[in-house]
């Protein structure tokens, strides 16, 4: 095997790469790269014509630099020149360069296309392959337009070499997937099918892929492929384990080709020709038989490859769904896998069996494995395997085993992972509804469901309930109970344990804890009670009459209370009985639960890949990348591959009207709009005309009463830099929060427990007095309930050059995610100014450091192991990675730093408690720097999910 590092002797390149790898810092790397770029530029510009070798070497270097994430804005022409070289390596590098750095320069595209055309026509197989690979790798619509018509010709030409045919098939497939309309169908399609008979297995493999894709659109054009595929498959399956030489993988002949052929057959119904069908069935049986034979190798690769074929065979058997014998054999085979020691096989067996369960021929056979599957649900350690087991139980459920399956699923639900609870709940509800043979079993099941997983029982599950015996605590239970007692409570009223007063007081004891919707429903129940049980009338009227109902702030509740009260006192018993007649039964319909499950499984699951498929703007997959750093996802040891730094800053909020526009002007860099420094002549003129005079009635009229606190809707959005400014204060308490030409705002703050005091210093940097100066703190959204901020009013005039101080008393009531806003308004030289900032109060300010020993730390760490309690971020360092600085930041963040906890001394571990009035949130954190990669991994675990995420985001910004 050749040693790669020798390459073909491009020593300059090797030296350059090792130089880069040896660079100690990013700065050094950039310096080295700039030096090289200058060198290459001068060589390319020089008078001396470069030979092919040098051109190749420099283009290689440019490519390497590009892959490191730097812009390359020259060298394209040299790369294109390489395309027409007669030396393979030079041509290859040329193609590589243009495949990676396609430039939309039309002149270049013309040259590139010309070179590709020449190579395609060259009859030199390696050159033709290079050209085909380039077309495929770029894969753009333009490439398709230029070459889609030529490639079928190359593919079916009698004199094309095998490797060329193979590449042509793949290239065509690529173009077809990108733009199907560009690939012309024609007589070549018939000849492509015959490639399945080709001597060369590589050609066959490529052809199967192409045909599988093409036949989906035009099945009739390709239907002759079925018999050819069967005979090819038969030859492979019956060949000895070494017949196919290069294509034998650990004693399995051509496993991937077999899988592909079996997949192609799944595009068509079972063959009609008896001989073909017989041959195919024989193949399928052979595969099933082989699974029972002793393995030819102990290597896991052997059995994996064999099983890949086996699973695809079973898929085909299920697809045909017409051979009972094969279906049952497939099921037995999968049954064996259910207890295999390899998790992968158990997973796949459960998955395949799920589809087998829906076939009438194998349903019974699948059912025989019920105990194994239930056992899997109980004992599997992997949630995805358990999920498959639950799916299979659902699929194999029928009247005969419904009780067993439902009770096992309910038991599983008690400990089930949160991620899949809702689905299990839906499944149980559907099964219970579908197979309910006896009434009390159904009711018990639904009650259990609500007891175990009330939170996951959605509205759809509730109305299917028909009866209820005893209300429990979950609100859904109260709702259901209220509804059913209202309708059918009289049926059980004879029993002293459920006499009308008992029923009523049970329901009413929950009333105050319930949401408005439930309370409304309960009020209806109460009026129904008056009808059903006249003896409760007085009590219920008392409840309805109570001030909390009649004057309830909620319109719905109030209206119900008033109407029901009147109804109960005015109407005769007959009227009441008619109005409050038993509800008619719900009409038959498709189970709404089933509909919900379908929705959940539906295609709109929101996949990144799906989204982009709909994006018509670009069909390029890997090609077509403009040379921008950090947009390349090509191998590179030190490029900013995660692109974290490249994350665009949050878009500036749209310019608000009125004062907002002025705000924008104040911050813009254009000197003409900076009123503070050297006012333009017009402005000076204006200010002379209208001297800033507080007593001027005009000014007073123009400005709204400054004393009134502006509501959140009155203040503008925070300035674009607000987040950045806020970030500066996450790890420190004092500093300059904001500064522009007019105003400087300084902050000094201290925090203890859940309390804090903050001093804001507003400095007037101009020589003119600010009027109507009014800084206010606004709580957007729910913040009011989470954080109390008391502000002292400040003088409404700030003299030129003077500073005023404002004191803020802060109390953290509960955990919060968004900081309060500080809105500052004033008039400067007659013009209203306003400015909204984020007040540097973040939740970590209420951190109380906690020291603990390593053992305690790990114990607590383990206690917080639910996935939603953890937040993790992996990110690129934005500042030099200095341990001391990091330490200071973590301490500033508020947590205690624990030494000797993490086995790796480079890592930082911290602990603390966030103190709020309502609750305390314990936080553990771990920061793992990776100096070599210039990356950090930050993990936060807290007892509250949003807090973990929020702290993680806050802290990750700091490094």
């Amino acid at each position, binding site marked *: 095997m050749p040693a790669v590092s020798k390459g073909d002797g491009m020593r300059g390149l090797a030296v350059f790469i090792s130089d880069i790898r040896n660079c100690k810092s990013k700065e050094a790397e950039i310096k080295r790269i700039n030096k090289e770029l200058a060198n290459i530029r001068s060589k390319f510009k020089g008078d001396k014509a470069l030979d092919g070798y040098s051109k190749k070497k420099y283009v290689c270097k440019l490519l390497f630099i590009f892959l490191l994430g730097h812009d390359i804005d020259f060298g394209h022409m040299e790369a294109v020149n390489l395309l027409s070289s007669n030396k393979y390596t030079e041509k290859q590098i040329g193609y590589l360069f243009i495949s990676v750095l396609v430039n939309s320069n039309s002149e270049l595209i013309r040259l590139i296309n010309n070179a590709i055309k020449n190579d395609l026509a060259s009859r030199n197989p390696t050159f033709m392959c290079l050209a085909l690979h380039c077309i495929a790798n770029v894969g753009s619509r333009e490439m398709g337009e230029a070459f889609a018509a030529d490639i079928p010709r190359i593919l079916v030409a009698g004199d094309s070499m095998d490797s060329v045919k193979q590449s042509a098939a793949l290239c065509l497939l690529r173009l077809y997937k990108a733009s199907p309309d560009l690939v012309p169908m024609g007589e070549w399609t018939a000849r492509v099918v015959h490639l399945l008979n080709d001597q060369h297995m590589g050609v066959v493999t490529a052809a199967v892929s192409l045909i599988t894709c093409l036949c989906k659109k035009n099945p009739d054009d390709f239907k002759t492929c079925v018999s050819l595929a069967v005979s090819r498959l038969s030859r492979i399956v019956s060949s000895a384990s070494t017949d196919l030489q290069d*294509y034998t993988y650990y004693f399995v002949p051509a496993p991937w080709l077999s899988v592909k052929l079996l997949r192609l057959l799944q595009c068509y119904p079972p063959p009609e020709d008896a001989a073909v069908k017989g041959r195919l069935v024989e193949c399928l049986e052979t595969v099933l038989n082989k699974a029972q034979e002793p393995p030819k190798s102990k290597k896991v690769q052997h059995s994996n490859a064999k099983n890949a074929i086996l*699973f695809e065979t079973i898929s085909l058997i299920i697809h045909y769904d017409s051979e009972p014998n094969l279906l049952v054999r497939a099921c037995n085979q999968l049954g064996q896998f259910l207890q295999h020691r390899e998790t992968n096989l158990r997973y796949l067996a459960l998955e395949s069996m799920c589809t087998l369960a829906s076939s009438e021929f194998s349903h019974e056979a699948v059912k025989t494995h019920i105990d194994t599957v239930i056992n899997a649900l109980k004992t599997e350690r992997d949630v995805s395997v358990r999920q498959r087991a639950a799916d299979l139980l659902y699929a194999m459920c029928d009247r005969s085993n419904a009780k067993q399956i439902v009770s096992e699923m309910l038991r599983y639900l008690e400990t089930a992972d949160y991620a899949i609870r809702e689905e299990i709940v839906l499944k149980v509800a559907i099964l219970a509804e579908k197979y309910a043979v006896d009434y009390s079993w159904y009711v018990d099941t639904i009650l259990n469901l609500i007891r175990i997983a009330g939170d996951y029982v959605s509205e759809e599950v509730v109305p299917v309930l028909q009866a209820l015996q005893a209300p429990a605590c979950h609100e859904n239970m109260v709702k259901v109970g209220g509804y059913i007692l209202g309708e059918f409570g009289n049926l059980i009223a004879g029993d002293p344990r459920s006499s009308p007063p008992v029923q009523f007081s049970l329901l009413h004891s929950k009333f105050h804890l319930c949401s408005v919707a439930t309370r409304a429903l309960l009020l209806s129940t109460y009026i129904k009670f008056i009808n059903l049980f006249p003896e409760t009338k007085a009590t219920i009227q008392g409840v309805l009459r109570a001030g909390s109902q009649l004057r309830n702030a909620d319109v719905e509740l109030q209206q119900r209370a008033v109407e029901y009260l009147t109804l109960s006192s005015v109407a005769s018993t007959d009227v009441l009985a008619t109005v409050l007649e038993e509800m008619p039964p719900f009409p038959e319909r498709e189970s709404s639960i089933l509909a919900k499950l379908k929705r959940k499984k539906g295609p709109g699951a929101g996949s990144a890949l799906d989204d982009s498929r709909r994006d018509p703007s670009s069909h390029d997959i890997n090609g077509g990348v403009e040379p921008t750093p950090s947009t390349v996802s090509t191998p590179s040891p030190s490029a900013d591959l995660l692109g974290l730094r490249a994350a665009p800053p949050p878009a500036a909020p749209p310019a608000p009207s009125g004062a907002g526009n002025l705000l924008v002007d104040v911050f813009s860099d254009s000197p003409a709009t900076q009123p503070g420094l050297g006012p333009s002549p017009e402005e000076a003129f204006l200010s002379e005309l209208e001297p800033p005079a507080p007593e001027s009635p005009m000014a007073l009229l123009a400005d709204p009463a400054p004393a009134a606190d502006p509501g959140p809707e009155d203040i503008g959005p925070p300035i674009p830099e607000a987040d950045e400014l806020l970030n500066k204060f996450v790890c420190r308490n004092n500093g300059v929060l904001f500064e522009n030409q007019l105003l400087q705002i300084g902050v000094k703050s201290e925090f203890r427990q859940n309390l804090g005091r903050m001093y804001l210093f507003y400095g007037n940097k101009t020589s003119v007095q600010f009027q109507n100066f009014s800084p206010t703190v606004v709580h957007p959204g729910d913040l009011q309930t989470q954080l109390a901020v008391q502000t002292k009013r400040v003088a409404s005039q700030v003299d030129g050059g003077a500073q005023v101080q404002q004191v803020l008393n802060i109390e953290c009531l509960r955990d919060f995610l968004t900081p309060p806003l500080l809105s500052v308004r004033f008039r400067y030289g007659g013009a209203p100014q306003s400015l909204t900032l984020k007040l540097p109060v973040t939740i970590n300010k209420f951190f109380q450091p906690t020291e603990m020993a390593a053992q305690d730390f790990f114990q607590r760490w383990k206690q917080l192991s639910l996935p939603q309690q953890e937040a993790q971020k992996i990110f690129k360092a934005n500042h030099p990675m200095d341990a001391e600085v990091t330490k200071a930041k973590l301490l500033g963040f508020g947590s205690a730093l624990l030494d000797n906890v993490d086995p790796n001394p480079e890592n930082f571990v911290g602990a603390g408690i966030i103190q709020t009035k309502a609750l305390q949130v314990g936080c553990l954190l771990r920061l793992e720097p990776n100096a070599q990669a210039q990356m950090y991994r930050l993990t936060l675990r807290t007892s509250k999910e949003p807090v973990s995420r929020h702290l993680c985001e806050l802290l990750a910004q700091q490094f």
Partner: protein
Amino acid sequence: MIKFFLMVNKQGQTRLSKYYEHVEINKRTLLETEVIKSCLSRSSEQCSFIEYKDFKLIYRQYAALFIVVGVNDTENEMAIYEFIHNFVEVLDDYFSRVSELDVSFFSAVSQVFHTSWQRQASPDQVLVLALEDDPTSV
């Protein structure tokens, strides 16, 4: 059908990525971060298949390097799983004891993909082609 092919190390750095369906550049970063996160969180007792959004991830770990293939739900998981190993064997043969760094930059890898994209070519055939392409072996 294969949607993408990733080589990511434990630190979350993507060593190689190939997309066979268009994904916007900025979404790729997010996707890759999430993908490696879900792989890292799994233990050896868990199976090598992860259901992720509306497709599946099939992964194998070699030392600190994860190879992850995203496929749609009709793909044969076992075939892909073994394909990953096959691919690594090819690399190992080619580089004689492949390491993470080898993958980082060498056009041959790219060449392997030129010829092998979407698993059509026989692995051995890929190797042969790659070697044919490598002038040092001629």
